[in-house]
């Protein structure tokens, strides 16, 4: 009973990256350049084999016998290179018992400290006041669903599972949601770092589903966690968590590390670059 579903999932997972590699991994604007050399299936043939192996392990019949929700990511790292303009990772999954269900994914980025300031009117001018520090707020938080949220599960249940963006605000403000926490979610939503994409998950017969997890260019680097929740008839069935990294690679990584670890050298480099370019330009353009 289980085996055909597993086979199907594995085949699908393998077939999609092969037939459309740009779709699974790369930025929408410039697929070839965004692709990180170290982690793309196309550039290192053994990676795809590895993914296939993991698919088989993840979809092990012994594990899935208990009615587990199994998922698979098309990649484990998003490389942020010089031309990074956002990227996407495909998440494949199989629901237990090969039956249909409603899936909600809460994709959460790294938790970074932030300050929020409220503008006040002082002598007719709108001036930002004292900052309030927000700790434990994810810098990225998007919810993806297979059906509109209202049809999936009661709001209270979704909030408890942290599958609603305003649950972040609730978490920040303690028992009563503060004005600042709500504003935080509002600003993040305007920056497209927070939000809900309803009906973004594609479900197929046999309890299979697929979704593209989009990481915009302004998303911070760090560990991203996708919590996958399954609902049936408004009831919570099970959930599973999978994660991937968004990391600076190559040149970008070297620079960030140099700036952090050898800051004096980096500073001298910046000044040297500025002065030499300025001097070179002056010398070059002296002759009209």
């Amino acid at each position, binding site marked *: 009973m289980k085996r055909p579903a597993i086979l199907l999932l594995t085949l699908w997972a393998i077939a999609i990256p092969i037939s459309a590699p740009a779709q699974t991994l790369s930025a929408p604007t410039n697929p070839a350049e965004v692709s990180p050399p170290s982690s793309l299936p196309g550039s290192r043939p053994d990676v795809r084999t590895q993914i296939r192996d993991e698919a088989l392990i993840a979809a092990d019949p012994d594990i899935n016998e208990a009615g587990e929700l199994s998922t698979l990511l098309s990649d484990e790292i998003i490389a942020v290179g010089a031309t990074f303009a956002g990227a996407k990772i495909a998440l494949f999954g199989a629901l237990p018992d090969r039956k249909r269900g409603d899936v909600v994914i809460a994709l959460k980025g790294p938790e970074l400290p932030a300050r929020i300031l409220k503008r006040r009117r002082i002598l007719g001018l709108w001036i930002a006041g004292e900052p309030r520090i927000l700790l434990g707020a994810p810098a990225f938080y998007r919810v993806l669903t297979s059906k509109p949220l209202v049809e999936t599960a009661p709001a209270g249940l979704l909030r408890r599972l942290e599958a609603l963006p305003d649950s972040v605000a609730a978490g920040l403000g303690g028992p009563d949601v503060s004005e600042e926490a709500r504003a*935080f979610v509002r600003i993040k939503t305007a920056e497209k770092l927070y939000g809900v994409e309803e009906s973004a998950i594609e479900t197929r017969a046999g309890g299979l589903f697929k979704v593209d997890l989009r990481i915009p260019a302004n998303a911070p680097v760090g560990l991203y966690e996708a919590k996958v929740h399954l609902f049936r008839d408004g009831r919570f069935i099970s959930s599973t968590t999978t994660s991937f990294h968004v990391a600076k690679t190559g040149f970008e990584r070297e620079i960030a590390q140099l*700036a952090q670890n050898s800051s004096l050298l980096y500073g001298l480099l910046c000044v040297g670059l500025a002065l030499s370019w300025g001097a070179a330009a002056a010398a070059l353009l002296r002759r009209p």
Partner: protein
Amino acid sequence: MQVYLPIAEISLNAFALVAVGSMVGFLSGMFGVGGGFLLTPLLIFMGVPPSVAASTSASQVAASSVSGAITQARRRAVDFRMGLVLFGGGFAGTIFGVQIFALLKLSGQIDIFIPLIYVVLLSTIGGLMLAESVAAIHRRRRGREIPKSTAAAGTRWARLPWKMHFPRSKLTISVLPPLFLAFGVGSLSAVMGVGGGFIMVPAMIYLLRMPPNLVVGTSLFQVLIIASCVTLLQAFQNHTVDIVLAALLLLGGALGAPLGLRAAQRLKADELRALLALLVLGMGLKLFIDLLGEPRELFVLAPGAA
């Protein structure tokens, strides 16, 4: 073409950044200012975090002033002795300004202070310059004699001690006014994240009574050194200089600065001052209007816990 900036941690259009750099470079070549007062707000507007914008602007200011300073030095339009005195005061001022900045940041008042000081400073200096230069243009058009600026210098600061002779400027004045001036500008530039040329140029003309033909070159020389110091300090202490962003701005700046210099030669000195005054005033006015209108979002989000 989008380029990812490793320190700012965002990706921006490379051509837009080069364009911004060349525009600021043009202005710096034309007026002898670094252009930081324009570049920092522009970068923040494009989405660069304010701390990175201010620190990276300093490197662009250094670069655009080096090409200008070399051109001016070749034209013998730099008073190096005055430049060194200004550097001494300016360097002390930069260190003082960084302390003030840290203090304001600690008390949470920095975000109130910066926009206010921008508005006050830009509108005061812009207004004064505009009034003076328009009057000068009027006088010139009517054919009246332009008052000799150097003649007044000897009497104005006559009582102050530690006189020094500046042969290039044909000035013999106490080192105290230029030292204090540079100290003030240096501390302001550290707080505001600008080179300070837009204050230096009018101050050298009106307060020190330096010959106008030496003002642009000497100011560029001083801005060059101060901006280099600020870049190094910010990279070393705060890790907020983005070298990729800097490189793109530099590319534009290197293209713009010589064009600005050429444009400046076609204009009369008072007209040049009037234009700079309008620019400074416009920027101050824009910031003032921004502070006046009720914002759509009452809250401002900033990264970091400090």
